[in-house]
């Protein structure tokens, strides 16, 4: 009996050693030369494999970053500047620091603002819905409310607000990977810079229709009146296709546009105090009146001369 056990152990051991040798030889013979820096870069990556950088995952990003001559086109939005600094240190490249960004939902079409004119009973997916028709309301641009963005977010930063029917971004969890923006068939989600101390302004609407039909569809939409663009002293607001857009690079966060917007389509986030709309409005109107008078006086003076 003991004989059998001894023999079995001996044979298995010898077999194991032999096979290990074979594996070792094969591994040595067919070894794939790989840049060791790829492993190093992968180690400092966040490891979320979210695809926010445009690559399939963190490993793919590391491979691309090592291969590329510089880091201009490769940026990990999730890791942000800290991770990119580490990557740059490993690869010996320079990296341009980017402002931290956050997802912004540009739609005001809550249940109260947007009267429902149709009902949808199909598969609850924005993508399916968008392929069929414009949506439950008169607005063909706004949020469809099925939550494709919430499903796309890997970080739990998005949730549907049951009261408004719109998605809400939790800025503390958002990594600006852009998955929600890609998932939204209406393109209402934008990745915008977080702004200084988290203060930012944006036009919360993407409706490109003309004013009257927009107003009919939604009470808080951008009607393209252009008052904000005229108010802005920093040329930060552009009006295109009946829609205002705030350039975050130029915006000085004075909140005058917010006060002047007749529909309340301009949102301000992260400010410590609520805006005293009437006071700011009065101030702006006073300034505009003075400017008009000055212009008239200048014109009159020119005429005299």
């Amino acid at each position, binding site marked *: 009996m003991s004989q059998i056990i001894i023999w079995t152990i001996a044979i298995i051991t010898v077999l194991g050693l032999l096979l290990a040798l074979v594996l070792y030889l094969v591994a040595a013979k067919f070894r794939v030369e790989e840049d060791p820096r790829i492993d190093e870069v992968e180690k400092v990556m966040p490891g979320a494999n979210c695809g926010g950088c445009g690559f399939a995952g963190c490993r793919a990003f590391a491979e691309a970053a090592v291969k590329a001559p510089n880091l201009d086109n490769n940026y990990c939005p999730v890791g942000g500047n800290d991770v990119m600094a580490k990557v740059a240190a490993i690869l010996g490249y320079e990296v341009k620091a980017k402002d931290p960004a956050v997802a912004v939902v540009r739609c005001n079409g809550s249940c109260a603002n947007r009267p429902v004119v149709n009902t949808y*009973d*199909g598969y609850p997916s924005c993508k*399916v819905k968008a392929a*069929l*028709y*414009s949506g439950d309301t008169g607005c*063909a641009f706004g949020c469809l409310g099925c939550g494709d963005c919430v499903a796309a977010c890997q970080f739990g930063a998005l949730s549907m607000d049951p009261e408004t029917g719109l998605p809400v971004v939790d800025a503390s969890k958002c990594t600006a990977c852009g998955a929600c923006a890609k998932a939204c068939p209406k393109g209402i989600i934008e990745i915008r810079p977080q702004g200084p101390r988290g203060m930012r302004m944006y036009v919360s609407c993407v409706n490109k*229709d003309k004013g009257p039909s927009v107003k009919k569809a939604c009470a808080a939409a951008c009607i393209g009146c252009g008052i904000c663009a005229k108010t802005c002293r920093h040329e930060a607001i552009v009006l295109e296709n009946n829609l205002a857009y705030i350039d975050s690079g130029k915006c000085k966060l004075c909140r005058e546009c917010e006060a002047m917007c007749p529909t309340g389509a301009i949102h301000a986030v992260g400010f410590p105090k609520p805006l005293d709309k009437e006071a700011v409005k009065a101030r702006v109107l006073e300034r505009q009146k003075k400017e008009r008078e000055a212009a008239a006086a200048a014109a009159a003076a020119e005429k005299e001369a």
Partner: protein
Amino acid sequence: MAKRTFSIGGIHPHDSKISRECAIRPLPLPPTVYLSVAQHIGAPAKPLVAPGDKVKVGQPVAEPGGFVSAFIHSSVSGTVKSVGPRKDLAGNNQMTIEIAVEGDEWAEGIDTTDTLVTAIPEDNKAILDKIRLGGVVGLGGATFPTHVKLSPPPGSKCECLIINGCECEPYLTSDFRTLLEKGEQVVIGAAIIRQVLGNVRCVFGIEENKPEAIAHIREVIAKLGCEGMEVMSLKKRYPQGGEKQLIDAVMHRQVGSGALPISVGAVVQNVATALAVYDAVQKNKPIVDNSITLTGECFPNQANVLVRVGTPLSFIIDQLGGMPEKAAKVISGGPMMGKAVANLDAATLKGTSSLLFLTAEQTARGEASNCIRCGRCADACPMGLEPFLLNRLAKAGDMEKLEENAVQDCIECGCCLYSCPANIPLLDVIRMAKADVMKIMRARAAAKK
């Protein structure tokens, strides 16, 4: 001999042709028409008119925007009020020409009499040109420009022209009425198409639930002495009117995945398209009107009406006694493949075939439960696909496997959804996956070029 039908899949919904006795009657002109520039598959047409221009009926108001595109003609006489975006049936913005109606003056050269012109011109090139200038598109649903379909790519040869008179969708009766009332015109239209394709065999495929139409067309063919034409009575089965299904039923040939009907020597044209070809070639009359079925159990004034292209739906409904109280959903097209209308102020298109009014009970969707792998959807799929599998792959987002399993061959007929005992919204999901896969395939083809 057993009646022919297609070989795989298919379902038998109740045909509900409750408007079959309603003769086609013209409706009065609306005060304003709205002509969308995207009434066909392919590139949208380019507007030729500006606000303030006076137009006559049949005058072109938009020209083709590419090779696969078509002319659009004014369906009324009057003044162009605006050219700009307007909400279409789905509520999306579409470039639209708005024309205020003033009188009913037709453009010169159009024969508006009812005289039957039987002599077919000999020059095929001239015929094709007339079809192109007449803005004729396939009126069976896909609205593919007809002149493109009738110019087969070099190297391919047509052996059989099939005139599609199946009207396999429940409720619809406009093609049936057209066959009965305009049989002569349809047969001559078919003869014209047959001549362009090189005097090939021509088969009228009509389902057996329309015996009057079958008998009438047989009579007309005998009376006019048309050569090479026959009428085939087909077994009733949905979706027999699908191009590939009809070819299978009539010729017993299967069109391969991603291939065109011409690859098996077939060209399929709808009954209404044959009529439009007759009008364009023999009468110089472009597509300015089409017949539309208004039906549904809750709609009291069942009708088949002849309306000008671009008539607002709300106007048509008002003319026929207004919106029925019980109607919960208005569908443009049949109940199987039609789309619910999101905006009743939108106007009809060339391809609009029906307005169907359904009640809340009729359109109620049962709550979806889990797939029990019964395989009914796979049995019902006329393209031989496995909808339950495609549904699962689509939810997982596995594009490669979806393409391997030929999601791009789906004809969106809805048989899977109809047959599913678990009420799973198979088609909704598969349609989305199909669009994604087609996008990837097109991008790949473009990259190859």
